[in-house]
């Protein structure tokens, strides 16, 4: 494992709700505390669709990784913003298709990192590794990822529901570009995130932020599409996450302001 740090980090502040634990709650997980469940309930009281978003995001991740490891033949993954382990994490989906897949998870949250190191264990043939870094620190992320991934071969770079943590859109764009710059032609980028087309979601996010939690920003649909500028979009392009290569016969969930896409670096 790439671990130059002596510990996963500082003590956890449990008096404020914690983003990864709230998502865990919405997904029906057990790794959350009362403060998270209260914040999660307060959020869903204003915007009930958040639970649909949480599920749709996970389903999108599953379909994208299956496509990348399958049809696209990618064997290396750089997963930025890991979150707490849940049922189908990136490496599990990828290694089910191609057991030799190598996955580097990037996060800077001590609780997430501790769980990831203990529980996101790789298949025998492949590898999982963990980078403790801010996603904005492209130099560090790429340097540590390079210990596990061959950065002369295609890599799938994913940001699943994490770029809204970057308040400024231009900065979010440069984070994506900075990491993609370090990857060779034939690499892929996949992102999903919330867009600002639901007033109820905006209101819920305002209340959430006022509770002392780390703020989260939605983008306009045009801004979201902008992340893929200069890339070849994989069919069907930038669409609602539920409409990205849905599994045949699976029922479509309720309407949610959540876009997703996959692009290939030419």
């Amino acid at each position: 494992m790439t671990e130059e740090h002596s510990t996963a980090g500082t003590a956890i502040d449990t008096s404020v709700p914690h983003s990864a634990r709230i998502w865990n709650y919405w997904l029906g997980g057990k790794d959350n505390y009362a403060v998270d469940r209260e914040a999660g309930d307060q959020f869903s009281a204003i915007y009930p669709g958040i639970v649909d978003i949480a599920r749709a995001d996970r389903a999108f991740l599953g379909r994208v990784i299956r496509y990348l490891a399958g049809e696209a033949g990618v064997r290396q993954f750089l997963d930025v913003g890991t979150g707490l382990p849940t049922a189908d994490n990136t490496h599990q989906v990828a290694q089910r298709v191609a057991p030799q897949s190598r996955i580097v998870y990037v996060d800077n949250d001590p609780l997430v990192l501790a769980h990831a190191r203990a529980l996101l264990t790789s298949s025998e043939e492949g590898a999982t590794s963990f980078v403790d870094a801010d996603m904005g620190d492209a130099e560090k992320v790429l340097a540590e990822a390079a210990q596990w991934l061959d950065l002369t071969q295609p890599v799938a770079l994913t940001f699943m529901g994490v770029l809204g943590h970057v308040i400024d859109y231009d900065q979010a764009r440069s984070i994506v570009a900075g990491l993609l710059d370090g990857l060779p032609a034939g690499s892929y980028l996949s992102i999903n995130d919330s867009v600002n087309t639901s007033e109820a979601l905006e209101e819920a996010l305002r209340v959430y932020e006022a509770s002392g939690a780390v703020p989260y920003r939605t983008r306009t649909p045009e801004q979201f599409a902008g992340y893929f500028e200069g890339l070849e979009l994989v069919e069907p392009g930038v669409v609602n996450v539920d409409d990205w290569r849905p599994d045949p016969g699976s029922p479509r969930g309720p309407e949610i302001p959540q876009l997703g896409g996959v692009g290939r670096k030419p």
Partner: protein
Amino acid sequence: MSTVQRDTEPADSLGPTVSRMILGNQLHRYREAAGVSPDRAGYEIRASRSKISRMENGRVGFKERDVSDLLALYGIEDEETYAALIALARQANSPGWWSKYGDIMSDWFEEYLGLEAAASVLRTFELQFVHGLFQTEDYARAVTMLGNSAAPADEIDRRVSLRLKRQDLLTGPRPPQVWTVVDEGALRRPVGGRKVMRGQLNRLIEVTEMRHVTIQVVPFSRGGHAAAGGSFSVLRFGDADVPDVVYIEQLTSALYLDKREDVDHYLEVMNNLSTEALTPALTARFIAEIIKET
């Protein structure tokens, strides 16, 4: 019937403890859905309200006839559902591998082995000793002697064999993920003497190589740490409806906590320990250093 989907697995794979927990949970939900009070349910099976509560919490075994009567009372007529729950009741009453050690084992430890065998993730904090799942035979013998110095030799042998048999869990077909945080003191205390301890520390390094085992040391240099009390474990089960269980061993009994407020508190302490401790990779190096000094 998504929550009883595991009834299709071989009967011995689930174990009695978790079968009880899952069945209890299902009965609780059916009773609530049917709007039946615990008193009324108790009356139906000639038992008390508190018996119903113990059944629903998975604390006691089930008579098939009771399960059948309750399902009828709750209006569950679907044959498949009925058959699945009866199958669970049977599993809940089947003895675990540990039952043959019943004479040297307290009930509370027997219950713990049931939970351990059924857990999907086992998180432990160890203050004094290396965790039982990782002990060498010599170390296990030394620990056993500490607690049972007056026992005859053959009883000591059987106690040690129970400890080692328990470790089959790690190499079995569906091992839990074991995530242990251990205080440096437990690695420094030469239980059984320095030679035994060196063997034990080498064994620890071996188990860190197992994919489903994670060990993290809290070094003395970390100062005071989050577990103000003593050793404890948090057991997680694969079934989404079965709550985490906190297990705290005491001298003559054990505490099982599964109320959300209690579990929250211990989970928080365990999480703090995991983030304060050395990472798994640094832990392996740290243990190698201790071996040189032992």
